[in-house]
């Protein structure tokens, strides 16, 4: 690790972390959240800290900001800022540095702004608490900042409340706030993770531009090697609280020396442009045929007040044969999840038809559809919220089939069989969901869906909440299950890279309509619609994709 740090003159270093350890309270999984890490953030550079959940990357950022919760504290090491060690500084001194010398932006821009304060007031507050300027000068500075981060109509934006802004706009406000006092260092904690891919590309570009223009140093925390490839000058790879590798971006991306870095890079899904090899093409039968499906959301009272009408799904037509996977890709609000809920009849459609094995299920009542429900199953996004924490895994798996009239003993037998099939040991049957990790829970979710021997699986963002290495395992499992059972799949995702890994065909949705449909090779290499082109171009790190691919297959 030491070899990664070159001799540098102190003047070039904006922030220097030396042998930093942060201890966790007793009884936790491990004794240290962060153990003995050292790195230098050079002036005018972007340093990326990359790691999976639990790697300690956010703890490192919070330690530098002096924002650790009380039970977690720095146990040893030093953080030098302009030659001054800030570990152990008094709370007041730390507070005077925050927002002035070091600023921070966060992952979820939806909740990071106070809903009761205007955008302008929140930007001005940074200056006010550090006693900078007069109310008048702060106001004009706030408006300048809004212009600088590229928000439209800054005069109007100044008086706006956060709920009126989109996610990307809120993140721009956060950035404006962070820049207010021209800090030397900006810490960005997964600032684009919660954003759509096209918005993510814009925010990354903005951070890059501002960093260059101001000569600022940026510490960028991410889990996405695509993002690293796009913006990093220097990379620190963290695993379980330790720094396993660091070096220049090109060096780490092209020739990672540590096994873990190599594994992480290899797990990053990227656009292969190759299509999936179809299995036993001969005995394929049509499973699903959807025609002109439409659903419009109406909100507000009919008698009083304004009505809001949102066409969520607008004339969608596609078909699917057995043993094939259709990817439905789109950004938030594109209608992809609404489509999934229509297909499994969690809500009724307004018009159109859904032919499932030749029978139109669109108009069926709940009672009529009940016998078909086992044949169409869903895998949900959040493996933490979708399993009842008070039920054992065995109960979660068997309760559905038993309700549909299968003998309990038979259901139990199948449950145990499926658990080992999805890669869990049979002891899982009697345990509770909280005893499992996110990836294991998603395996339970898959086993639950398979209990019914479904003909059609609908996976709604089934791997989005998982770390990349776990993501790769789950995708492999789904692929294997499809090859064995011949089940058809509809794979709903916002991530084109993930879709390209598992889908035979991809439908790109935009504003409730399918704008393009075709095999991955067409979507990625020869997109027909302008929107698809925009989506593909926004995928982080794909310009540097050859670099990543090279590292993955040396």
């Amino acid at each position, binding site marked *: 690790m030491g070899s990664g740090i070159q001799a540098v003159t102190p003047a070039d270093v904006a922030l220097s972390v030396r042998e930093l350890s942060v201890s966790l309270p007793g009884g936790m999984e491990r004794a240290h959240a962060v153990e003995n890490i050292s790195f230098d953030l050079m002036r005018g550079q972007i340093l990326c800290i990359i790691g999976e959940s639990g790697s300690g990357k956010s703890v490192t950022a919070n330690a530098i*900001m002096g924002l650790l919760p009380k039970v977690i504290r720095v146990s040893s090491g030093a953080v030098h800022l302009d030659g001054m060690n800030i570990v152990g500084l008094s709370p007041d001194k730390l*507070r005077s540095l*925050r927002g002035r010398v070091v600023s921070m932006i966060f992952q979820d821009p939806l*909740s990071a*702004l106070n809903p*009761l*304060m205007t955008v302008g007031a929140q930007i001005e507050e940074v200056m006010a608490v550090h006693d900078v300027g007069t109310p008048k000068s702060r106001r004009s500075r706030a408006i300048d900042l809004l212009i600088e981060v590229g928000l439209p109509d800054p005069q109007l934006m100044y008086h706006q409340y956060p709920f*009126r802004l989109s996610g990307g706009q809120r993140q721009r406000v*956060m950035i404006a706030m962070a820049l207010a006092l021209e800090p030397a260092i900006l810490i960005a904690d997964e600032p684009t993770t919660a954003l759509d891919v096209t918005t993510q590309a814009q925010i990354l570009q903005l951070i890059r531009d501002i960093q260059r223009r101001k000569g600022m140093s940026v510490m960028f925390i991410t889990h996405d090697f695509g993002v690293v490839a796009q913006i990093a000058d220097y990379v620190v790879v963290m695993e379980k609280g330790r720094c396993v590798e660091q070096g220049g971006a090109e060096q780490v991306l092209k020739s990672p020396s540590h096994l873990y870095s190599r594994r992480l890079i290899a797990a990053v899904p990227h656009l292969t442009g190759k299509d999936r090899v179809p299995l036993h093409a001969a005995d394929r039968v049509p499973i699903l045929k959807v025609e002109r499906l439409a659903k419009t959301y109406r909100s507000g009272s009919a008698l009083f007040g304004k009505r809001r009408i949102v066409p969520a799904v607008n004339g969608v037509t596609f078909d699917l044969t057995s043993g094939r996977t259709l990817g439905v890709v789109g950004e938030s609000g594109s209608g992809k999840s609404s489509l999934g809920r229509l297909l499994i009849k969690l809500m009724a459609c307004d018009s159109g038809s859904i032919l499932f094995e030749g029978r139109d299920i669109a108009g069926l009542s709940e009672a009529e559809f009940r016998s078909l429900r086992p044949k169409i199953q869903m895998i949900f996004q959040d493996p933490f919220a979708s399993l009842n924490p008070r039920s054992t895994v065995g109960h979660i798996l068997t309760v559905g089939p038993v309700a549909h009239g299968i003998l309990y003993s038979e259901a139990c037998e199948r449950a145990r069989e499926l658990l080992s099939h999805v890669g869990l040991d049979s002891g899982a049957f009697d345990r509770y969901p909280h005893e499992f990790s996110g990836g294991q829970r998603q395996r339970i979710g898959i086993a639950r869906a398979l209990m019914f021997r479904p003909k059609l699986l609908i996976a709604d963002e089934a791997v989005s909440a998982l770390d990349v290495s776990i993501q790769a395992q789950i995708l492999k499992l789904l692929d294997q299950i499809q090859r064995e059972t011949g089940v058809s799949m509809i794979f709903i995702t916002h991530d084109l890279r993930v879709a390209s890994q598992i889908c035979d065909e991809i439908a790109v949705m935009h504003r409730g309509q399918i704008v393009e449909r075709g095999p991955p090779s067409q979507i990625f290499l020869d997109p027909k619609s302008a929107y698809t082109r925009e989506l593909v171009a926004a995928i982080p790190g794909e310009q540097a994709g050859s670099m990543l691919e090279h590292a993955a297959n040396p």
Partner: protein
Amino acid sequence: MSGFLLNRLSQSIVLLVIVSIIGFTVLNLMPGGPLAQFGLDPGMSQKDVERLVEQLGLNRPLWIQYLDWAWRLVQGDWGHSFRDGSSVLAVIGRHLSATLLLMGTSTALAIAIGSWIGIRGATHRYSLFDYCATVGAMIALSVPTFWFGLIGIYIFTLKLGWVPAGNMYTIGDGSVLDYLHHLILPSLVLSLVHVAIWSRYMRTATLDALSQDFVKTARAKGVSERRILLRHVVGNALLPMITLAGMQLPSILTGALVTETVFTWPGMGRLFLDSLGYSDYPVVMGLLIFSAILVVLGNLIADIVIAIVDPRIRLA
């Protein structure tokens, strides 16, 4: 906004009609009927009672009686007390100020003290203060109010002689100080339960606001803890409390039955009990409608206040 108000208002009227029908029916189902009181009076003959029935229209079908009553109510005639013949609105008016004084004081006390305890409990979570506040609230909620009232009278009146045992003022005095002197004990006893409720809700709401991401943003901006609490946390924590305050409004005016009885406070709570005892149906029905209107009004006011305070609702 005006559409929202219209909507709520029309719902409220439907609600009031339903409440009044249920109340009217149940009241008239009670054994003895409205004139049971007079049947026991040796000074009244069977003939006198029959004359009264005729006079009050009690021999008509119940639904006609209801419509008649409701139509008069809408016109502002709430009927007349069986007890002394004065109009129901005047009877309510006589007792309203006493209840307003007692409940207003104790609610104001409860909100002030409860908010402080709740916020401090949240910022000093799991501290000695927090534990004491939790245990104290449990005790205040589980021990009946009349017991606190009796113990209060025993200690502060009988043993220490600091405050009077009951009534609202000393006959022949009636100065502001005299009123205050009488007010202290009942309002403190009454606020005890409300402090307990309010502090628990406030603690939860504050903890909820403290765990929001924007608090972390404020810290990262270098905002002091004190300012974070005042500018970012309290405002967001009070939003859900407005609804709770709206739900308490009716109790401010309808009074506390038990406390008013223990301290012989001439308020609405005692009026209700007394009127029930005398089978004074017009007054009981009047009080019922009055408190139903307050429930509706309290919720409506809470909704309006939230809409004013929260930009997400005001501007949506």
